[in-house]
C-alpha cells in the first residue's frame, strides 16, 4: 500500500448527515470483480441525472471541487453495508481524507485498509472545517498525519486523535496480512489450545 504522509488539497463540504454506502456507491456498481475504476461512479445517484448527465448542483461536479482530496462530511458518514467498494470509489476519485463527527464502524475500518484517513473531530471543530470547505478552491486544507493536525486555509490548526497502530500502518503503507502472518506461531498456539477446549468448533 502507498505510504500516507501529508495531504494539501481542496476540501469539499457535504454537510448531509447519515450518508450511507448506497449513496456512496449504489449496488449496480458492485458487480465488478476488481477493486479499481470506481471513482467515476462515486456518489452516482446524486452526481448524475437519470439520463447520465452530470448534476451541476452536486458538490463534486462544481468546478472548484472537482479535484477535491478531502471530504468534510456530516455525522455518521458511511453507514449501511460493509461494501469496500465505497472506500475503493472514494480513493479512486482522488479523495484521501474524510473528516466527520462520526463514522459507521465497518466503513471506518475499510478506509484504513485502503490508505484513506478518516478523521473524527468534535462538533465545534467540524463547524470550522465545514465553513472553511465552503470557500471553494481557495479552501486548501493541510492534513498532516505524523503531527496529527489539520490546518485550515486561514491557518487554524486542529489536532486529531488516531489509533497508534493504524497511524503506523498508514504512514508506512504496511499490509495487514503480512504483519499478521509474522504472528503465525501465536495463531498456531491458539488453534492447538482451542481444538482441545472446544473440539466441536
Amino acid at each position, binding site marked *: 500500500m502507498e505510504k500516507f504522509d501529508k495531504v494539501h488539497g481542496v476540501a469539499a463540504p457535504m454537510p448531509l448527515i447519515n450518508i450511507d454506502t448506497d449513496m456512496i456507491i449504489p449496488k449496480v456498481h458492485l458487480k465488478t470483480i476488481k477493486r479499481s475504476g470506481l471513482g467515476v461512479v462515486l456518489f452516482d445517484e446524486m452526481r448524475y441525472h437519470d439520463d447520465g448527465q452530470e448534476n451541476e448542483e452536486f458538490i463534486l461536479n462544481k468546478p472548484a471541487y472537482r479535484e477535491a482530496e478531502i471530504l468534510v462530511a456530516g455525522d455518521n458518514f458511511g453507514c449501511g453495508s460493509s461494501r469496500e467498494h465505497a472506500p475503493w470509489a472514494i480513493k479512486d476519485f482522488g479523495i484521501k481524507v474524510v473528516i466527520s463527527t462520526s463514522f459507521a464502524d465497518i466503513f471506518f475500518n*475499510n478506509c484504513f485498509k485502503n490508505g484513506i484517513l478518516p478523521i473524527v473531530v468534535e462538533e465545534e471543530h467540524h463547524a470550522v472545517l465545514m465553513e472553511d470547505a465552503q470557500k471553494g478552491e481557495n479552501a486548501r486544507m493541510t492534513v498532516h498525519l505524523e503531527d496529527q493536525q489539520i490546518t485550515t486555509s486561514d491557518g487554524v490548526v486542529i489536532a486529531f486523535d488516531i489509533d497508534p497502530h493504524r497511524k503506523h500502518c498508514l504512514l508506512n503503507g504496511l499490509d495487514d496480512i503480512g504483519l499478521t502472518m509474522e504472528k503465525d506461531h501465536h495463531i498456531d498456539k491458539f488453534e492447538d489450545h482451542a481444538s482441545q477446549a472446544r473440539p466441536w468448533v
Partner: protein
Amino acid sequence: MSPKTLYDKIWDAHVAHEADDGTCLLYIDRHLVHEVTSPQAFEGLRMAGRKVRAPEKTIAVPDHNVPTTPDRVNGIENPESRIQVEALDKNAKDFGIHYYPVNDVRQGIVHIVGPEQGWTLPGMTVVCGDSHTATHGAFGALAHGIGTSEVEHVLATQTLIQKKSKNMKVEITGKLQPGVTAKDITLAVIGETGTAGGTGYVIEYCGEAIRDLSMEGRMTVCNMAIEGGARAGLIAPDETTFEYVKGRPHAPKGAQWEAALNWWKTLFTDEDAHFDKVITLRGEDIAPVVTWGTSPEDVLPITATVPQPEDFEGGKVEAARRSIEYMGLEAGQKLSDVEIDTVFIGSCTNGRIEDLRAAAEILKGKKIKDGMRAMVVPGSGLVRAQAEEEGLAEIFKEAGFEWRLAGCSMCLAMNPDQLQPGERCAATSNRNFEGRQGRGGRTHLLSPAMAAAAAITGRLTDVRELM
C-alpha cells in the same frame, strides 16, 4: 475474578494475541462468504500465493445477485452477475471451502443458511463480508460484518485485527402486545437510539420480551443491530437456542454435544457486570411500526403521522426535509393513508419460516389489492420447501403473491427484482436508504404481518385491524 458480560466472555475466549496497545488478533471460528464482497479477496490470495488457512471453517453461498425466478435453473442472464457467481463457484472449488451452489436446495441468504445448517453455534466468532452478519448474534455468537480486505485477511490468517468495543445493554421488559413482533422491537430500538447510537458498542439484547422470542425472532432483532450502528448484537443462549441447534447437520453430536452444551451454559452476562450504556424499553409500549423516511431511525407507530422537519434538531432537520421529499410524503399526513405499489416479503431480516407463517396468517383466504405487485422470497431453499409443506406457499399464491426462489432479491436489488423510480414498497427488509431497492424507489420497512396487511388494503395498515 471481575464479573464479565457475554461479549467479554466470547471475546476473551478468542484472543490469539494481544499487543501492548490493546490491538488484538481475534480468532474466527466461522467465515461465511458470498459472491459480491469476496472476488477481490480471493484474487488477492492468488496474487500473493496464499492459501485459505482454515477451509473447513469457511462456508460460501451465492445470494446477493442470484435471480429468484424459476428460470434461474437455466443460468443467470445478467453477464456481470453471472461472472460474480461463477467466480465464487471457482474460488470455492480452488480453495476447497464448503459450498452451496445456486441450484442446491440448501442455497439461500448466507445469514439464513449458516444457522440452518448448524454452522453458527453459541460462543463462536462469526464474520462475513456483509453487514447483516450481526444476525448470528441471536445464538450468543460474536458476529459482525467486515470489508473485503478483512475477508482476505480472515481467509489468509483465520484472524481479524480488532480492538474491543464497549458494552451496551438493550433490555426489553415485559410482554409484547398482539400484532407486535421482533421486527417492531428492533425498529423501535433504532428509533430510540438513532442509527449512530450503537457506534463503538456491541449490544446485548435481554429482558423478558427477548427471552420469549423464537430463534427466528431473535435473528430478526440481532440482524438490525448494524442499523443502530453497533458492531454486533448478542442474545445469551438458552434452551430455545439449544433446541434450535440440536440435530442440525453441522452441530456437534454425542459426547461433543454434551461438552459443547456445558460450555454454552456458561455464556451469560454475570451479575453486576459493567455496561457502558443501557437502554430499556417496555415491551407493552412497543406498537407495530413503519419507517417514513430514508434512514432506519425514521420509525413511528403505524398510528402516527409523517413528522414536520422542524420537529428535529441539528442536521436532522435538513435530512428529514430531504427524506420527506424523496419519499413523496407530506408532513402531517397519516401513515395509514400512504398508498403502496409493491410488497416485498423476504431478506435476512424476515425471510425465515416464522416470518412466512406470520404473513400467511394475515393473508389466509384473502386477496391482495388489485394492481398490487407482491412477492415472497424465502430466505433459503429449505425455508421454501418447508413453507410448501406447511401449505403457506398456497396461501401466498392464492392471495396473489409471486412465490420465488431463495436469495437477497429486492432487499438490495442487485438482481432483477428492483423498484422503478417513484414506486413505493412495503418491505420486510432492513434498509430504506435512497435508491436501496432501485433508483428512485421508496421503501417503508415493517414486519411480515404488517407487509401482508398492506398488500391486502393497498396502503400502510395497522395489522391489528385485520387480526
